[in-house]
Structures are given as structure tokens and as C-alpha cells.
């Protein structure tokens, strides 16, 4: 008996050791992945804090010797950084709003209604995602030019909204598909119109998918460079991606200002991610119907 018990205890201990070793390995891999992700960001902060004479230093310390905020001040003093930020912000916010609104309604139509071209439409939407952005550049430019929207906010907004739309529609359609139709039918009987059922029942339940679509639209438009390069030529309309790129000269690149500007533009995206994370929590539809 005593021997048996001992054997069981030993086996349990061995099992626990294996579990611990497994956990250590998994965590080590995850920590390594996090470091790889965060390192460039830290490096950027580090470069932005360096005094002007040490930019190409191979020093690895996060806060360099003689750290200074001079680059941050210089970005504001010597460039149109605020204007670029404003341009980016206007374009990004309007794009996200239009993109999400169109995707929310479009996705609903694809999820709930049968119409000619339903399947073809969905396939084509997916198909557009297979085309590399570079290939779209020329047709997009020609389209925006014919519309007379070169060098305008509107041109950028149109270009960004339509390129993010297919992905957003797919995300939302997929999410709507998981919401039982009986919820809308109950609302219809209770006294809403079809749009009312969508607005009062389906939309509030779709916040996780809506936030994903919003984040996608926002980061796409905020970080975009290629289309902006083609559509915008007036420096007064530059977004921050174009503006910061101007700092890169043929003979001299102001790395300190470049890094400081880059760091400052990542802050809004980070904040939005943090804020929307609470909406991303799924499972809101649980409990409404049997399950």
C-alpha cells in the first residue's frame, strides 16, 4: 500500500514537473516574441531622445547618455508637424466613420438578404483583397484624377474607404451571421421597422466586430503612405507619413526628428487600441436565445 502511494506521488510530481517545463517554454517563446515586437519601438524612442551628435551610435541603452527632448521640440519648430497630424486625423476619422457605416449596412445586407449576385458579390469583395496594393495604385490614381479629387481630403477619403471596405464587410457579415434572426423578428413583432431592428438590436450586439472594423479602417488610413504619395502633391495637404518622409534627405536625414515624429504618431493608435479593447470582448450575444 505504502509503496503504491509512493509511486502515485512520484508520478504526480513528474507530471507536475513536465507541466512546469512546458509552461516555462511557452512563456519564454511568448516573451521572446513580445521583445521582437517591442524592440523597434524602444529603439525609436531611444533614437528620438539622443542628442544630435550621437545619432548613429551603436549604444543599446534605452535612455541614452545625455538624453534630451530637443528632437521633439524641433519637430514642432522646424516642420509642419501639427498640420500633417491634422490632415491625417481628418482623413482617418472621416474614412473610419464612412468605412464602418458602409460596412455595417453592407455586411447586414449580405448576411440577411438573398439577392441576385449575392454570392458573386462576396467572392469579388474577397478577390479584391488578393490584389497587391501596388497594382491598384495606377487605376486608383486615374479614377481619383477623373473625379477631380487629386490633392483633396475627399480623394484620400474615397480611396481609403473603398480599399478597406471589403475586409470590413466580410468581418461584419461573418459576425451578423452568428446573431440569431429570431432576435430581429421579435423586434419586428414588438414594433420596430426593419431598420429599427438593425439599429436597436443588431448594431448594439455587434460592437466587437464594429470595433475590429473601426480599428482596421483607422490604422490602415493612419499609416498609409503609397496612395497618399500619389494623390497628394501640395505640401499643405500632406499627411504625417508624407511629411516625415520629407525629413529624409539625400545628404542628411534628421533621424532624431524622424524618430520623435514617428513615436508621437504611434501614440493615438495605441490609445485607440487600448480604449477599444473593452469593446472587443465577445460573447455579448450569449443568453439571448436558448443555448
Amino acid at each position: 500500500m505504502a509503496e503504491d502511494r509512493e509511486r502515485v506521488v512520484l508520478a504526480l510530481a513528474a507530471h507536475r514537473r513536465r507541466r512546469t517545463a512546458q509552461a516555462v517554454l511557452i512563456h519564454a517563446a511568448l516573451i521572446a516574441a513580445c521583445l521582437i515586437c517591442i524592440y523597434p519601438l524602444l529603439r525609436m524612442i531611444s533614437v528620438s531622445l539622443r542628442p544630435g551628435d550621437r545619432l548613429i551610435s551603436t549604444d543599446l541603452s534605452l535612455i541614452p547618455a545625455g538624453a534630451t527632448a530637443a528632437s521633439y521640440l524641433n519637430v514642432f519648430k522646424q516642420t509642419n508637424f501639427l498640420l500633417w497630424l491634422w490632415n491625417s486625423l481628418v482623413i482617418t476619422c472621416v474614412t473610419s466613420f464612412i468605412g464602418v457605416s458602409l460596412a455595417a449596412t453592407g455586411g447586414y445586407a449580405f448576411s440577411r438578404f438573398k439577392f441576385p449576385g449575392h454570392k458573386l458579390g462576396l467572392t469579388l469583395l474577397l478577390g479584391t483583397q488578393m490584389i497587391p496594393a501596388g497594382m491598384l495604385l495606377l487605376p486608383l490614381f486615374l479614377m481619383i484624377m477623373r473625379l477631380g479629387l487629386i490633392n483633396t481630403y475627399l480623394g484620400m477619403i474615397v480611396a481609403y474607404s473603398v480599399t478597406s471596405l471589403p475586409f470590413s464587410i466580410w468581418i461584419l457579415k461573418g459576425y451578423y451571421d452568428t446573431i440569431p434572426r429570431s432576435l430581429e423578428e421579435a423586434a419586428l413583432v414588438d414594433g420596430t421597422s426593419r431598420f429599427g431592428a438593425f439599429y436597436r438590436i443588431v448594431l448594439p450586439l455587434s460592437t466587437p466586430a464594429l470595433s475590429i472594423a473601426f480599428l482596421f479602417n483607422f490604422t490602415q488610413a493612419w499609416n498609409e503612405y503609397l496612395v497618399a504619395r500619389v494623390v497628394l502633391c501640395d505640401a499643405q495637404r500632406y499627411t504625417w507619413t508624407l511629411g516625415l518622409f520629407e525629413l529624409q534627405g539625400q545628404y542628411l536625414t534628421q533621424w532624431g526628428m524622424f524618430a520623435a515624429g514617428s513615436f508621437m504618431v504611434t501614440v493615438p493608435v495605441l490609445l485607440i487600441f487600448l480604449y477599444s479593447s473593452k469593446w472587443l470582448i465577445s460573447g455579448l450575444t450569449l443568453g439571448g436565445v436558448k443555448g
Partner: protein
Amino acid sequence: MASVTLSRISKRYQEATVLREISLEIADREFMILVGPSGCGKSTLLRMIAGLEDITEGEILIDGKIVNHLAPRDREIAMVFQDYALYPHMTVAENMSFGLRLRSVAKSEIDRRVEEAAGILQIKNLLKRTPRQLSGGQRQRVAIGRAIVRKPKAFLFDEPLSNLDAKLREEMRIEIAKLHQRLGATIIYVTHDQVEAMTLGSRMAVMNGGIIQQVGTPAEAFSRPANHFVAGFIGSPTMNFIAGALEGGTFKSPDLGFPLPGARAAGPVILGVRPEGICVDKSDGASLSEPVPAVIEVVELLGYKRNLYLKAGDKRLLATVDASFGGKPGDTVSMRFQIAGIHLFDQETKARIG
């Protein structure tokens, strides 16, 4: 409350006909059951009354007014769904008051009605919870509460108890019966469960294959089924059927036969007899047929009754007898049919002929 009239209603999806010329009068304050096997079109019919499905042909009248082209919200009906369909992002009180808020009813009136309905359904303590914090039975009560507060012209129930376990289903069935007595409401209730159909309804419409097979009180459908289908569908355990022929007042089938003095029909028939209509031990005073020998295959004790699985020739029959019956598998017994419990159906048309 109001009457509901269905006049020659048909529903077709492309080629498939789901409902064929359904006509049905549901009187004011009546509890009408639509019962039938799955796929018989009963839920589709209910959804058409609610306005959730288009009507291919025919007319639906609520309170004498044609509602074919009215949106669900303008029909003044309330519906309780099979899966409850509670709004997950609203509390119980918000769920119940949703319809009233849409109609801009005064806040004090909304509170009064929600309070009243919650009192009837004993869910006053749940009003602040969200659906996910409720059990299945509680969700069902909330769904019914949401319908009650609206004070609609008619209530539509779409298999409301089918997701509950057996005990809870029984409780809720009694609750719904009480509710009907209390509210005096017009109720149209879809179910495939014949216990619900038998116990709840003032009348029932038995449906199969998109057609109403019989409309009548539960007692009528049970004791005088209009055709072979209704006879087989209503009643549990199911009626025994023996295909045979009537010749000169005698029923004959390959496996058994006996004189049927009262029978006027002749030719091929299906004879139906409920398990309670077969006697194997002693007569209980009812007039019985001549005895037919049968072998007991299986005996099941149900507590107060026994099910006997009998074999006469190659024909298998089920008889329900007293629990005190002492026969064992392998025994040969004389079975007799209660003459009054014999139903005859035409083999061709399946309609009742006697």
C-alpha cells in the same frame, strides 16, 4: 382581444408548396393549437399570421380586418419564440418594456404594466438581470412577459416549451393554461407535442403535408379522428392499425379476423384500435369482439399500467392493460377488441368511414 380568420391561405417557395388552401376560424378568446409533425407547415402558418412570412395566396384577417400587407408591428399581435429571442443587451425589464417604449407609452404606464406582468409570472425579482443570468425556464417566463405587457389582440406561441426539460415543461404548460384563463386571450399555439395539444387547447387543428387534416376539440380528434393520419398522430401510445377487408359484416386480414356486426362498409379498409381498446384478461362490461389468439412478446410496466407487445399471426399490436395483469412473454392470450373503440378508414382515401 380579437378573432383571427385564415381564408384559403397558400404558401409556395419557388416550386415547393408548403401550405395549401388553409382555412381556419379562430374565435375571440379561443386557445387554438396548431399541431403536426415537423415540416407540416404549422410554424410557417404562424409566422404568416405574425407577418414574418409573405402570403402567396389567400387572406388573413385579424379582428375582421385584412392584414396581408401590414408589417408585423401594425398587426397588434405578440409572439413568443421557440428560442425565447430575448434581447441580450437589455435587462429583463427593458426586454419586457421594449415594445411599449417603441410605441411611446407613458413611463408610469410602462412601469405599471411591467410590474403587473412580472407579478403574474413571478419574475419580479429578476427585472434587473440580463438574459444570460437566467435559467431556461426564467427566460421563457420573460419571453411570455414581454408578450403580455403589450396587451395584443392575439398571442402567437411558436413551440415555446420545446427547449425546456420535461419537468419544467409540465410546470410551464400549467402556467400557460392558467394564463389563458386569467387573461382570456386569443392564443394560437404551435406545437408538435400532443400532450400540450390535448391539454391546452380549446380546439386544435391537426396539420400534415401543408394541409389541415382535422379541426376540432381535443376530445373529438382523439375519439373521432377524421382520417388515418390524425388517428395515428393523436394519442400516445399510437393507435394500432390492421389493413384488411370487410366482407358481409366480418373483418378479415391475413393475420386475424372477427365479425363486426355494426359495420356497414364493405371492401378494403384499415381497422384502427387504440392500445386501451384491446382487452386481454377479463371484460370490463364494454361490448367486445370475439377473441383472437395472440402471443405476448414483451411486457413493460409503466407503474399504473402495463404495455403488452402482442403478436397475432405476423401482425404486431400494442395493448395497454392494468398493472395487475400477470401474463409473461411467451404466453398465449385471447385478445378482444372493444367494438366502440374500433375506427375504420378507407384504404384508398384514408378517410374515416366508421
